[in-house]
């Protein structure tokens, strides 16, 4: 209908006539849009950082353990309640806890906890108490000494690499690592008598993806070819390397003996965080890592102690954990209502469990499903709260800055209408309709604000880039948010242009032509 290109050209000419004022209005809008883009980028960066930290904290880790210590625990508890003469498991589980009898008496537990503990249905065959994963052993467990069946785990230790492969196909699963663990002695050639007693982990190449706190000062982790080929290669925890070779020695390429078999060292594992210093006796750095396939081959084992899984997002962890449980029950042909021969736990609940008193820890273990949900709900709840605060802040900054930009645009246009009253009168005299005049001023406002928007996006990109670079803030600019910022600027320009445009359109041509 209207010759839009011509009107745009007119608007541009009009703006270029007042370069100074136009520049200032564009600058005002640019500051607004720049603030918007920067704060959106910082907001998104902060959200990513929170999610990353949750992932780093292991909130997305699921561990499937062979055996069902919950069921095992029930047996123990029942034994006590019924006054059996079996050795008191507390002596072994918490040797120095001083909890004996006093705290273990059912009367000292709250009703709710008791219910949780007693919640497991049915009596199970007796399981060796040493295989309770809650206990930390400084000696080989019964299963390790005696083998799966002899240890009384029987059909319980049924996790296989096929189970792991099946889990890998569940949607939402990120990494899957099969593991066997053992307490073993390692030594180096010529020092057969100076054995180091440590943790042996048979594992897969993806483990460092899960252990996000690891760094490799020397070498690398096991690679998929070595795992596939059952090779005798080994990654050393910092503590083991320090004891075998001395501190600050590069162990890569050296030979370490395990079960009297030579293993070539491919890498040294250290801790990324000062908060987690490698220590003697810890499970991660006082440890050696070899391919799970090699362990199965050398020891003629087919079973796994556990499978560690991570999910792509923290929010999926509960759902994926449930799906893993259902899948394994089906694969292990466990009838509905019967206790499983494995345990699915999320890291979140382990973290919670760590900070609790022993009684509560058992309660947590006994009520794992609802505890897991509670934990995830708590975590995602605080994430959401953080997001909402951030979004509120962003909305505030964006509103104020865009308001300022919009007012700048309106100010320039009102000035322009006054300055160009005669022009408007002339245009009306030669046939411009009121709508033609209004459109022209609105176009000017939009041109101004889009120009401001483009400059602002550029400024925002630069600002968040340098904040990220020089201040290590995390910022995340998406092209979508850049496009949205320009669109928002255009809309703001339109809204703030309407009032001056109406004023121009309502001028009386005769009065306007007389205007000086």
């Amino acid at each position, binding site marked *: *209908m*209207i*010759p839009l*290109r*011509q*009107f745009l050209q*007119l608007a541009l*000419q009009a703006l270029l*006539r007042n370069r100074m004022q136009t520049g200032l209005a564009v600058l005002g809008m640019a500051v607004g849009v720049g603030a918007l883009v920067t704060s959106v980028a910082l907001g998104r960066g902060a959200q990513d950082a929170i999610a990353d930290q949750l992932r780093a904290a292991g909130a997305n880790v699921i561990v499937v353990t062979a055996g069902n210590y919950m069921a095992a625990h029930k047996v123990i508890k029942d034994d006590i309640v019924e006054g059996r003469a079996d050795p008191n498991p507390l002596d072994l589980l918490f040797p120095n806890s001083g909890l004996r009898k006093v705290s273990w008496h059912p009367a000292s537990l709250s009703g709710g906890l008791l219910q949780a503990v007693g919640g497991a249905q049915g009596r199970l065959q007796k399981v060796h108490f040493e295989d309770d994963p809650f206990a930390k052993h400084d000696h080989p467990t019964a299963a390790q000494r005696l083998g799966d069946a002899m240890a009384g785990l029987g059909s319980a230790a049924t996790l296989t690499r096929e189970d792991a492969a099946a889990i890998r196909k569940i949607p939402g699963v990120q990494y899957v690592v099969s593991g066997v663990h053992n307490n073993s002695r390692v030594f180096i050639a010529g020092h057969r008598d100076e054995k180091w007693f440590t943790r042996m982990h048979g594992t897969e190449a993806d483990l460092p993806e899960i252990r996000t706190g690891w760094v490799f000062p020397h070498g690398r982790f096991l690679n998929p070819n070595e795992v596939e080929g059952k090779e005798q290669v080994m990654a050393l925890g910092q503590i083991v390397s320090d004891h075998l070779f001395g501190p600050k020695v590069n162990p890569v390429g050296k030979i370490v003996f395990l079960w009297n078999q030579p293993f070539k060292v491919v890498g040294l594992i250290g801790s990324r965080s000062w908060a987690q210093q490698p220590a003697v006796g810890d499970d991660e750095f006082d440890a050696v890592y070899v391919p799970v396939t090699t362990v199965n081959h050398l020891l003629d084992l087919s079973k796994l102690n556990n499978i560690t899984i991570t999910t792509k997002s923290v929010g999926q962890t509960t759902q994926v954990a449930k799906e893993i449980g259902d899948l394994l029950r089906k694969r292990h042909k466990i009838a509905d209502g019967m206790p499983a021969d494995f345990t699915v736990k999320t890291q979140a609940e382990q973290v919670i469990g760590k900070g609790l008193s022993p009684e509560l820890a058992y309660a947590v273990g006994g009520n794992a499903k609802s505890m897991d949900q509670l934990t995830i709900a708590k975590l995602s709840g605080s994430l959401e709260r953080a997001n909402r605060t951030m979004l509120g802040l962003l909305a505030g900054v964006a509103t104020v800055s865009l308001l300022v930009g919009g007012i700048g645009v309106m100010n320039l246009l009102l000035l322009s209408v006054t300055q160009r009253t*005669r*022009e408007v*009168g*002339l*245009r*009306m*005299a*030669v*046939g*411009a*309709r*009121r*709508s*033609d005049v209004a459109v022209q001023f609105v176009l000017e406002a939009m041109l101004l604000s889009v120009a401001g928007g483009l400059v602002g996006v550029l400024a925002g990109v630069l600002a968040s880039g340098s904040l990220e670079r020089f201040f290590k803030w995390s910022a995340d600019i998406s092209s979508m948010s850049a496009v949205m910022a320009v669109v928002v600027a255009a809309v703001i320009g339109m809204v703030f242009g309407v009032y001056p445009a109406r004023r121009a359109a309502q001028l009386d*041509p*005769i009065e306007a*032509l007389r205007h000086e």
Partner: protein
Amino acid sequence: MPVISLQNLKKSYKLGDNTVHALRGASLDIEAGEFVTITGPSGSGKSTLMHILGCLDRPTDGKYLLNDRDVSNLSRDELAAIRNKQIGFVFQGFNLLPRTTAVENVEVPLLYSRPAMPAIERRKLALAALKSMGLEERAHHHPSQLSGGQQQRVAIARALVNQPSLILADEPTGNLDTKTSIEVMRILQELRERRAITIVLITHEPDIAAYGTRIISVRDGAIVSDKPNDPTPALEHVAEVEAPRMAANGI
């Protein structure tokens, strides 16, 4: 059929309790091809009449037929369309857009033509109008680079570009010296003679009024005299004015 037919046209302005009667019942017919000059003292209602004739304003009472159509009660947008197509304005102060070239100034009315006209077409018509004013060389000059006479010729080109049947000029020579004024009057006379365009011109100078074919005198919002006139031939007049000056310059 007259181009303009006014029947008992009245216009009054309310100023607080007072009512100013700017036009107190004007009736007149203007035929195609007439060159009407309207004179009268300041405040007599000339401009008010001109605004109504130019469809910039509406009468309080009475009827205005333009080309046989009653335009007394049309909407603002309908009046805008009539101004665009049928009327060309020439103002005392030229009213050219500053920092805009001559040809772009001439194009302005074409921007508001409906249906919309392609840019090439607009440019072609604007250049033709400038050429008819002898300004094709100045097409890309800004008003500030042109003399007063040249500026008024650009304004006349703008008034002509949509080929109106009526040209309204309010004191078009008010800002010009005598010689340039006569040049402008010559242009208007030629437009009437060669293109049969109807011209209504307002002036308070009797000399200028004498270039028209009909002189109307207005006083206190009423027409007091309306006489045919034997127009002063502007062409000869230019020569008369020019001759002594050329002689003085030794030409």
